[in-house]
């Protein structure tokens, strides 16, 4: 496991000054900013049956799960792999005395870590954004403490369900040197989700799983989280195994 720890450390060092790292902050904060803007345009306050904290968080999490999360995942994962595709990095990593599987495994772990970071930023951003909206809008009143446990649970569900999309993006970006293929997959997956959402098979569509994990009935929630998380982990492991078998000296 020393090899894996070293490979992860190397991947983390490589994130310095990268767009991948910046995306993990910018993407969730854009969603939060948008949600603050929506609140500031409200003419009326909330009804008695609405918990403002949860409303803010759920709306932001919906936007995140449907659009920003899959697109940010596509970009972040593509950039993590592209660092090697663009700079002959596979050759450089290939001559290091590390077990071959450690490199793709480290990339998968770091990509997952980045997605987790973005999700945490979203959660913290929601707390800050709600407070900001409360301060700026006279009709918004946050009278209770934030229900952090509920917010955390919802966030975890969305994150778990998103792992399959992450794994798909990871497989595509490791295999194809062109960043266009990776981003194209992300955009196409997100776009097709609009059509798949009305379908009976919607809960099985990877790009809709985060949404179902948040808004679905209990069964759909369990299904989305279980399929997304388990499917994602299996696909990540499979991708690592296949990538480790591929010679780093092969072109294309």
């Amino acid at each position, binding site marked *: 496991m020393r090899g894996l720890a070293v490979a992860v450390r190397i991947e983390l060092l490589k994130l*310095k000054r990268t767009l991948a790292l910046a995306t993990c902050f910018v993407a969730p904060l854009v969603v939060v900013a948008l949600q603050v803007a929506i609140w500031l345009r409200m003419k009326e306050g909330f009804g008695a049956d609405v918990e403002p904290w949860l409303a803010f968080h759920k709306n932001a999490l919906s936007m995140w799960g449907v659009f920003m999360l899959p697109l940010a995942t596509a970009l972040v994962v593509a950039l993590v792999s592209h660092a090697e595709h663009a700079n002959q990095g596979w050759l450089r990593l290939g001559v290091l005395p590390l077990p071959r599987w450690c490199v793709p495994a480290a990339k998968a772990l770091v990509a997952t870590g980045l997605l987790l970071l973005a999700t945490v930023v979203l959660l913290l951003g929601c707390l800050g954004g709600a407070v900001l909206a409360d301060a700026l809008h006279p009709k918004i009143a946050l009278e209770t403490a934030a229900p952090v446990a509920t917010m955390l649970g919802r966030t975890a569900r969305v994150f778990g369900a998103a792992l399959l999309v992450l794994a798909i993006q990871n497989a595509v970006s490791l295999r194809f040197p062109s960043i266009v293929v990776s981003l194209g997959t992300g955009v196409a997956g997100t776009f097709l989700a609009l059509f798949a959402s009305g379908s009976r098979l919607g809960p099985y569509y990877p790009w809709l799983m985060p949404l179902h994990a948040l808004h679905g009935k209990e069964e759909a929630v369990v299904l989305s989280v279980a399929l997304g998380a388990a499917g994602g982990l299996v696909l990540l492991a499979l991708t690592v195994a296949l990538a480790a078998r591929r010679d780093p000296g092969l072109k294309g």
Partner: protein
Amino acid sequence: MESVVTTCGLTYRYGETAVVSGVDLAVPRGSVYGFVGPNGAGKTTTIKLLLGLLTPSGGSVELLGEPVNGRRSAALARVGALVESPALYPHLTAEENLRLDQLARGVPRANVERALAAVGLAGEGKKLVRRFSLGMKQRLGLALALLHAPSLLVLDEPSNGLDPAGVRELRETIRRLAAEEGITVLVSSHILAELESVATWIGVLARGRLRFQGPLEELKGTQPGVLGVRVDDPARAQALLRRVDLSATLRPDGLLAVGVAGREGIARVNTLLVGEGLAVSHLALEEASLERAFLALVAGVPEGAAA
């Protein structure tokens, strides 16, 4: 003589095409092994096979006594390599680039500064690599290869992109590493003159097959020496020499280039010409060049000979 790189019947096929075929390399410890071949000969593929970047279709590779396909990490632990162009992360500084390999190789952090100094980049460590010139990138690539004080250095076309001063500097570095630090260097190039002045052993690869392997002098010895002769009547001298089965070509500078073997051959030419009353004003043996020997080896190799 102990070999630090040994391959046995090394073969690599890409589909039906054999890119490398039955190569038996033996790189002696402490040598500067010049790996020469025309473009497309299979040099880079061979080097990738040596470093475990490609899996051979047949044959075996041993680096420093360790089988690359069995104990890859152990085999690569004491090897430094620069394959194709240097693989650098442009958004990181030179120091940060070296730090990645320093972590992977588990060597002290002080090696980073030492490696930068060894390639003349001592003051450039904090600079982003994207701001480096091509020559600086090439030197940083060499620093990466030297970071862990390897016993074997494998350099694939390291002078690509270097200006003449850079090429000379690289030659000096290779010479110094071999002479002072006892590092065995395997360096590939298609620039023959570059290797002639630095290599002690030569391997010639053409169309995926090893055509020659041995000391530089032995390669040169495969070609007859050329004797430059100036006489008062070159046409008559040429006729006389051809009569005794010696090839003689008149060069534009007025010298006759005569193919001879050994001291006896030189004396024979001199005796013949003077004995026939010709005035010989210049008689000098021109050393056989690596280029001539190389061209003789690779010339006439038929297309697809490796298959």
